[in-house]
């Protein structure tokens, strides 16, 4: 699915990723944990192509294609999805219009017909029910006035509609209460089909009780310093990141 080789990237001249290596196979769930400032969010932003993040060296292959040859929107259409840590509010643009434009773009790229407005409405309503988001939120401006939990559920709603191949969840658990956390986790788990892969970026072990990862990595100082299975997350929860400092150097 995804191969990241010796990735070096910087923002505003400051190097954040320092030769990161990571391989994600089809159907795998990888958790990435690490201290603040380790480069966790940068990884998601670099993979999706956000302006301001400059790739200095290294390579990323997404389904065999050189990711850096693709524009932001092309990566999305190829099946990459980032659930934002801070979803953006866009007043005046209805959530429905936004979701339809996204899905239209993805389907067109897949050689599928655009859904009719009627079919789309139906699908959007059904999907929003799955993430316990009242259908009224579809008519509001994108994330406009949504609570933190509603914004995150709206991200999962988008993910479920777009059916991406690779989902990157950037601290989706931050600011969520336990109910919302379960809704998000159920959404993710329902999408695990043995083919779709996930990168779950989080500070806390808690989310991984609900979304059980195949692999856990520690990102520190801009590279993966330790990898293991789900037990590693529990160890980190108990011991913190300090004991890994030697491995950063």
């Amino acid at each position, binding site marked *: 699915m995804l191969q990241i080789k010796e990735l070096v990237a910087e923002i505003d001249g400051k190097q954040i990723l320092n030769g990161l290596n990571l391989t994600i196979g089809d159907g795998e769930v990888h958790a990435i944990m690490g201290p603040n400032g380790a480069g966790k969010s940068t990884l998601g932003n670099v993979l*999706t*192509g*956000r*302006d301001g993040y400059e790739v200095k060296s290294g390579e990323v292959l997404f389904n065999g294609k050189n990711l850096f040859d693709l*524009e*932001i*929107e092309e*990566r*999305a*259409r190829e099946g990459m*999805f*980032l659930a*934002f840590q801070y*979803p*953006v509010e*866009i*007043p*005046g*643009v209805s959530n429905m*219009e*936004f979701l339809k*434009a*996204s899905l239209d*773009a*993805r389907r067109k*790229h897949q050689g599928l017909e655009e859904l009719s407005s009627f079919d789309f409405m139906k699908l959007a309503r059904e999907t929003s029910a799955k993430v316990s988001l009242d259908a009224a939120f579809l008519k509001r*401006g994108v994330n406009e006035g949504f609570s933190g939990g509603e914004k995150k559920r709206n991200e999962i709603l*988008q993910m479920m509609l*777009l059916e991406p191949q690779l989902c990157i969840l950037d601290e989706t658990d931050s600011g969520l209460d336990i109910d919302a956390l379960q809704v998000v986790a159920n959404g993710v788990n329902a999408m695990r089909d043995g083919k779709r892969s996930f990168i779950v970026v989080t500070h806390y072990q808690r989310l991984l009780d609900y979304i059980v990862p195949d692999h856990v990595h520690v990102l520190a100082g801009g590279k993966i310093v330790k990898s293991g299975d789900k037990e590693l997350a529990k160890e980190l929860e108990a011991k913190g990141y300090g004991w890994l400092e030697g491995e950063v150097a």
Partner: protein
Amino acid sequence: MTQPVQPSDFQKRALSLAQQSSAPAFLQTVRQQGLDEFGQIQWPGRKTEMWKYTTLRPVEAFANAGWPADDVAADGEQLASLPELDATRLVFVDGIFDGAASDELPDGVRLFSQADESARLLLDRYLGKIAKDVDPARRNLFAALNDAWLTDGVLVYVPKNATLEKPLYVVHLSTAQAADRVANQRLLVVLEQGASAELIEHYLSTKDAKASFVNTLTEIHVGDNARLSHTRLNLEHEASSHVGAVHINLQRSAVANGFTLAEGGELKRLDYQINHCGEGAELTLNGLYLGRNEQHVDYHTTIEHRVPNCTSQEVFRGIVGDKAKAVFNGRIHIHEDAQKTLAELNNRNLLTSNTAEVDTKPELEIYADDVRCAHGATISQLDETALYYLQSRGIEPLQARMMLSYGFVNEVLETLPHEGIRTVLQQRLRQRFVGEV
């Protein structure tokens, strides 16, 4: 000693055009006053505060202009392009009333030229007077010109506690025949105590329209407890020049809801003057302006709070791209007696190119000490984070920009009271932002 005013070439021409027009005898007083006044007002230049950012050169280019032919009729295609509204439609073509294209005039609506005795009394009482109810230093010279050029107009009268049954939809169409011509439009609305009416003024051009100059003046008296909904759309061809003003006097506990939208042109200058004359009056005024290519659009709004306990809520937004220029001047003047005033003015601008220009100036002048006022003006670019968010969902950058621009204006459009007009405009603006119109 003050220097005698030297009229500009346009002023001389305008005065001679006024002499070449004729009007019913009962309009002569207003016309003569306009003539006398217009010739005596110093033609504005760069140093004239009210015209600081807007040059009148496009108007000066009409120093050899004539009146349009009076037999131009709207053709079927032009009429078919108008939205189907559940409203009484009046059509003017190049300033001339087109009876064939208009609905039958309902009770209370008539042309000045068809005024009976009671209508003449109303004209005597209100015509020209509402526009003159301003600080003399701020007298609008184009309102004086409108008086001088007055030949006809539309009078709307709604008696006490009555309601104008259907919205009045006044269409002003400029055609190619109006090239190098001037046109004068006039509307007077009198809502008596407890009356209510909805008005829509729609200015547009045919596709082949060329440079023309339209001067418009709308005066509205909103009586005690009366309710007004007023929408004004300036969607003419970009070769056109339009200088227009809307003057509204609000009496005790009157409620006015105004909406205006202008697309830029060679020159678009629109003045709103609203006077709170009676306690407890409420005003909402929302507007949008859009400029592209080398268009110019200028809104000057003035709200006079002369009495206590009135409210004003004003929101204007603009999107300006290419080499276009927009001017917004929002003045709120709270007089010493106007205690317990609530007034808010917000102006936000989106610049979509490095060569576009916006000059915005909120002006709050407050002489009362117990008021709540807020104002703000911003000029910014499209939100890069929002663009990234849309693109990260597979949306093309061009479409993403369109969606964000549309969203920016749609927040204001959603306040438009008339659903039919709102839908038409939403459609048009979507098309505009993807470059289809």
